[in-house]
């Protein structure tokens, strides 16, 4: 074989092999270290290791809607906030299982709901990527393996630093600095919103029975673990709520029905009066810091009454 012959006769062989092996060892050691550092920060950001009594679970809607620091100060106990952009109902079920594995002291889960949560479409299609940092967790590993393309999965499995997107790195850094601030300052542009709706640029409500079933399964898991569930509707702006009024009400009825069916479930609805206060919104479905503060205050009052 020419290749083997060439390798044998190459005078630089030993030095080159040493360099290459050292290079790979250095890379994987550094990668391992970066993986640990980022994962620790992320776990701190989500509040996994704080023995929280209450956990908030949802997507960006809840992430920007509730201030966990304010909750902790006013309630006097730790609150975990496991929220991520674009996570769908199935992802949230996985997040809750993951959270329960990490913390067995949770008494209440505040589960962010909205009228579009059973629609599915419109949320991130590659939301499995949000779970890459936790591939060492068996249930997450199974979920990601099913959802991710094979080459992507194995790359993440082998090289830990590939598991982090910019958003996850940012969350990890925030975790170290204990920063959970809502940075979306500004107010929704009502004129543009109305224009967009007129042009048909809005997300339609389509309650998929599969997604309703997943929420049912999630609630049953929590019931088994004696955990109270608060389905929390952080307000969305009235303009989008009214667009498909009938479907919107139909979805709210689904949440109410859960409270009738399960004694561990409550539905806390902040649509009234806040959905009409446009100065609380950064965009049609996300609150700005002012909105976050108002809604958190109101939630704290509700929790104090339990």
């Amino acid at each position, binding site marked *: 074989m020419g290749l083997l012959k060439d390798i044998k006769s*190459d005078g630089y062989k030993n030095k080159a092999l040493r360099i290459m092996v050292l290079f790979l060892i*250095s*890379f994987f050691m550094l990668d391992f270290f970066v993986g640990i550092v980022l994962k620790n920060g992320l776990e701190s950001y989500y509040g996994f290791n704080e023995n929280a009594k209450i956990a908030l679970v949802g997507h960006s809607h809840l992430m920007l809607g509730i201030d966990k620091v304010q909750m902790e100060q006013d309630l006097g106990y730790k609150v975990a906030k496991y929220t991520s952009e674009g996570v769908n109902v199935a992802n949230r079920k996985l997040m809750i299982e993951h959270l329960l594995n990490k913390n067995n002291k949770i008494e209440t889960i505040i589960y962010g709901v909205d009228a579009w949560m059973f629609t599915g479409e419109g949320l991130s299609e590659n939301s499995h990527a949000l779970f890459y940092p936790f591939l060492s967790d068996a249930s997450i590993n199974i979920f990601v393996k099913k959802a991710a393309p094979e080459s992507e999965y194995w790359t993440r499995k082998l090289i830990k630093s590939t598991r982090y997107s910019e958003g996850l790195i940012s969350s990890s850094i925030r975790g170290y600095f204990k920063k959970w601030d809502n940075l979306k300052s500004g107010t929704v542009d009502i004129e543009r919103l109305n224009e967009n709706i007129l042009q048909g640029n809005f997300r339609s409500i389509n309650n998929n029975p599969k997604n309703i079933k997943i929420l049912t399964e999630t609630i049953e898991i929590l019931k088994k673990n004696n955990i109270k569930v608060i389905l929390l509707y952080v307000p969305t702006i009235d303009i989008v709520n009214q667009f498909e009024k009938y479907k919107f009400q139909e979805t709210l009825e689904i949440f109410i029905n859960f409270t009738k069916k399960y004694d561990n479930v409550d539905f806390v609805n902040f649509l009234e009066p806040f959905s009409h206060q446009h100065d609380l919104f950064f965009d049609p479905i996300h609150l700005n810091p002012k909105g976050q503060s108002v809604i958190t205050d109101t939630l704290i009052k509700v929790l104090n009454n339990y």
Partner: protein
Amino acid sequence: MLFNSWEFILFLCIVFAIYFSIAFRFRPFLLLVASYLFYMFWKWEFAVIMLAVTAVNYYTGLKIAKSTSKKQQKTYLGISVFASLLPLVYFKYANFFIDNFAVILQELGFKANFATLAVILPVGISFFTFQAMSYSFDVYNKKTLVETNFINFAVFVAFFPQLVAGPIERSSHLLAQFREKHHFKFKLLIEGSKLFIWGLFKKVVIADRLAIYVDRIFENPELYSSATLTIATLFFAVQIYCDFSGYSDMAIGVARMLGFRLMQNFNLPYLANSIADFWKRWHISLSSWFGDYLYIPLGGNRVPYIRWIINIFVVFLVSGFWHGANWTFIVWGGLHALYYLFENWGDKLLNVVKLIHIKKSRIYQTLKIVTIFVLVCFAWIFFRANSINDAFYIAQEIIFFKTDPLYLGASSVTFILSVLLIILLFAVQLLQYFKVASLYFSESKMPVVIEFSWYVLLLLGIALLGMSSNAFIYFQF
């Protein structure tokens, strides 16, 4: 198949192992098969076009070499140029001509509504066409020996590392290398890998990250402030450099691993101290192609002054048009021609007023580097804009600057990271400029430990901050 994919890494490992294991005489054939496979990953039908361009130039090359009269040689060269350019014109320029012909007719009062052709531009067509044509020119000009072995010639046109985005090689440089007996060498493997890693970092960490901001702003420029448009233009300047030079570095690195030497395509272009210097540093293989096969045949600078000005415009306008069938590219080329001429007139003026000595001062040189960078960035507006109207709008907003707030993009983290990466890039370039760090395969003055750590960190940077993208900007050309 993209360089920044696992498919390519696997493909390269297989080709590499087989290439060095088989007998020398079979190696060009292996490279030919590998190159066509590589190309057919995009669309197999396009390989037929490449094969046709190869066959035409191979045949005309033989005929030119055998012909005894200049007239016959010219005829065969003409056939070669015409037949090579035919697919390029059809796929790349036909719709442009149809559209503009219709506009002219409408301006003249005729009703003209022509259907455009539903064609997809074969990836890399401009590159392999120009590479094949350069061979015919070189045979005609007796700058290279005629290649009688079709396999060798076909692999010269299709050599996979540089097939789809250059460097556009010359037969006198690359063709002979297919006859050489390459041995596997660890030194070449390491050198090639280092360049590949640096190219990959520029592509997936810098260029693809900047693209998110740039694409968003250039898609709807009217929605953004002057400051935002300025930053988007600056980002694009870095994006296109990192994208294209990143590809070139990877191509040169891969070829190096196999024992081939490809020409350097970029030489710190944003540190150029004149427009002429910029074009000696940017896409060197294309600018030298136009120099050798267009500018010099037109007479170069050995013609009357007015004719020389025309030559300059022709070269730059054709160069712009080579990049794409859009007026934006033509204006971009025209702007560079104007810069070139103004620079020439400026030098003449310094001569007249006897201030030519200031050209050597450090302040003048630094100011010139900054000025050239600003001018080049300004021209990039036309290169990147979606339409000529958008380009003029952006240029106007930047010139008549209004102090509206800067848009940081969807994520301020991405923005800050982008700025830091640009600073890192320029820091590396300065180290390369002052010959402290290695540029291509030059000697590095960096301590071994630092250089070693640098490449480990680059690879980690790729893993941690790399974005996934589907294409390189220059693939569309």
